[in-house]
């Protein structure tokens, strides 16, 4: 745990943790509302949003891209609702139609526009580039107190930390509403909670979390983190409070273990080089979910749905 660690591993691990937690928090509610695949849809439409933002502004800068991606996510959510209602298409298919359409448009735009001079390509969007978010100026733990070195922290770290903090704050502020509306929408409406607006807000917040995380870590982590930690947590407990805490723990664990395994795993196996950290984090979250499926104390369905029929 010396200077090398601070320089090369500390910031990617922190960014990984923040991104994972920011996605896992709304994921808890999406899973319970059977909207788990919204994360999948959003992570696909982020690409066209970023491309359009780039074409409009001509620069690869964080803010316009975040705005573009967020706008694309909102457009996608609205389009999905529209296709569902106007066309009477079932939700899963409506989602499939909209996100493939937008993703295809994004890829085409990207290929058609001249982006050879900038770092913008589909693979990068899918895989992220966590490994490159290093803190070159750091010379050891004492750099944490060195303002010059701190100023050279990758900007993604600050943005992701803010994004994560916003998600935590939103979860705490709307906790009671979310809890009631997630389990009993009718009851929530009777209490005067704007359940429909809350549901839409949840999706938009998820989209923002996905967009913020996406910039730093690529869409694989986003898809996996929306679902795997909350799903594993759901098999650990039947209390929503504890489920959210478990999911945060699992998300953190995936980020740390995934990054370490990606960086050092090949060395331990006697190979050289490293593998994709984003991919490894997703893999570790999958392993955790697998273990929860086999050993989780609350893995079984209780009550009426025991026969294995699921919606």
């Amino acid at each position, binding site marked *: 745990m010396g200077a090398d660690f601070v320089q090369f591993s500390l910031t990617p691990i922190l960014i990984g943790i923040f991104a994972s937690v920011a996605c896992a928090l709304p994921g808890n509610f999406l*899973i319970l509302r*059977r*909207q*788990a*695949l919204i*994360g*999948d849809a959003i992570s*696909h439409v982020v690409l066209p949003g970023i491309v359009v933002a780039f074409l409009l502004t001509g620069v690869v800068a964080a803010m316009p891209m975040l705005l573009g991606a967020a706008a694309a996510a909102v457009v996608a959510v609205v389009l999905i609702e529209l296709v569902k209602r106007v*066309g*009477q*298409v*079932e939700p*899963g*298919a*409506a989602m*499939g*139609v909209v996100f*493939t*359409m937008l*993703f*295809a*448009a994004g*890829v*085409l735009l990207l*290929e*058609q526009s001249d982006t050879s001079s900038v770092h913008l390509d*589909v693979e990068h969007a*899918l*895989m992220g580039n966590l490994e490159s978010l290093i803190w070159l100026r750091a010379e050891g733990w004492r750099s944490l107190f060195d303002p010059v070195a701190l100023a050279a922290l990758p900007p993604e770290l600050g943005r992701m930390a803010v994004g994560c903090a916003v998600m935590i704050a939103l979860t705490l502020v709307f906790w009671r509403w979310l809890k009631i509306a997630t389990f009993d929408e009718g009851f929530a409406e009777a209490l005067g909670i704007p359940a429909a607006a809350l549901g839409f807000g949840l999706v938009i917040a998820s989209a923002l979390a996905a967009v913020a995380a996406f910039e730093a870590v690529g869409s*694989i*982590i986003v*898809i*996996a*983190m*929306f*679902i*795997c930690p909350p*799903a594993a947590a*759901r*098999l650990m407990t039947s209390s929503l409070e504890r489920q959210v805490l478990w999911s945060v723990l699992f998300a953190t664990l995936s980020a740390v273990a995934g990054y370490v395994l*990606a960086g050092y795993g*090949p060395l331990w196996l006697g190979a050289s*080089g*490293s593998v*994709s950290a*984003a*991919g*490894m*984090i*997703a*893999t570790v*979250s*999958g392993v955790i*979910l697998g273990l929860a*499926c086999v050993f989780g104390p609350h*893995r*079984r369905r209780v009550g009426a*749905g025991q026969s*294995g029929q699921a*919606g």
Partner: protein
Amino acid sequence: MTPLLDALFLQAGYNAALVAIGAGLLGFAGGATGTFLLLRKRALLSDAAAHATLPGVALAFIVMVALGGDGRNLAGLLLGSAITAGIGLVTIQWIVARTRLTEDAAIGAVLGVFFGIGIVLLTVIQTMSSGRQAGLEDFLLGSTAGMLRQDALVIAGGGALALALTWALRRPMTLVAFDAEYATAAGFKVSRIDLIMMLAALAVTVIGLKVVGLVLIVALLIIPPVAARFWTESVGRMIWIAGAIGGVSGYVGAAVSASAPNLPTGPLIVLVAAAAFVASLLFAPVRGVAAALIRQRRFKSRVHHRQGLLAIARQEPIREPFTLRLLQRENLIRADGVPTEDGRAAAAKVSRDERRWDIARRIHQDAGLTGRYDGLTPIEDVFTADEIGEFDRRIGPPVAVGG
């Protein structure tokens, strides 16, 4: 001729023609197979399968290189992808059956995790000592550049197989899609039919990897059936329409893609299909948006028409502008709002029909016929002339309105 027309009429060279025909067949198979996935509400299951192909492609490459081969043999790569996609589907089934997680969570989990594993393996390949640029990234978004004749044959053959499977089993699959419990009672093995349905979808997914890519291949299974659903209420026809939309999308998309540089095949195919979807959504008869708007407008006119005539019959003034316009256009009232001769006659008829319904409700105690009263159904459609004559006898002779 322009390059685009050249490509559309298969004049852009042997390879481009091959790709266009292969993509057309693939699209047809995808649309037909996807029809049942859509009806069974499992459209996104194939998205998980598509993403789960990536580790298989990578593993197949690693194994083939380890065995001393080239590593880029398409059939070998597709076999590997089919295996992991199958494992992904089985995992989803297992999660749904064994735990309390819902299907959408299971789909998302498998999709994300398998894709993550695939990315890890891709980076392993990049560091492999063979150092050869494997080009496996092409499988993400599809690439038809440098496609060989044998690749096109694999695609055409696989597409035909999936199509044949779908066609042969369309009846049991229809039954399962609409009423799985009845199908069980009728002696069909629902789980086996579901499995075959997934196998056909899997075949389309796997052979589509090369052309469309794994991120977008699911579109070939979803968009054409969703578009086809707007045009028909019959499953038999839906298969053909979805197949046709998919086939045209595949063919046109591949041809356009070959006509100019920087036009990736997969996204173009998807966008052509998406255009077909939007057109269907807007313009399909009965279920389309335009048809619904026209229907709603007609209904509104009928309601206003009737309310206007009732107002005339009761000698009440009409103030609602739409009703006024409507009645004026039909020459039932004059521009100053005074009813014309025709208007008074029509009003008398409407008013008389109301009283006939009153009598009808008194005579026919059962609600079967009188329950059809909604103010818009002509009484002549519900009762026979004799019955109406009986109502009239009880009402008495006609009375003129507002002379």
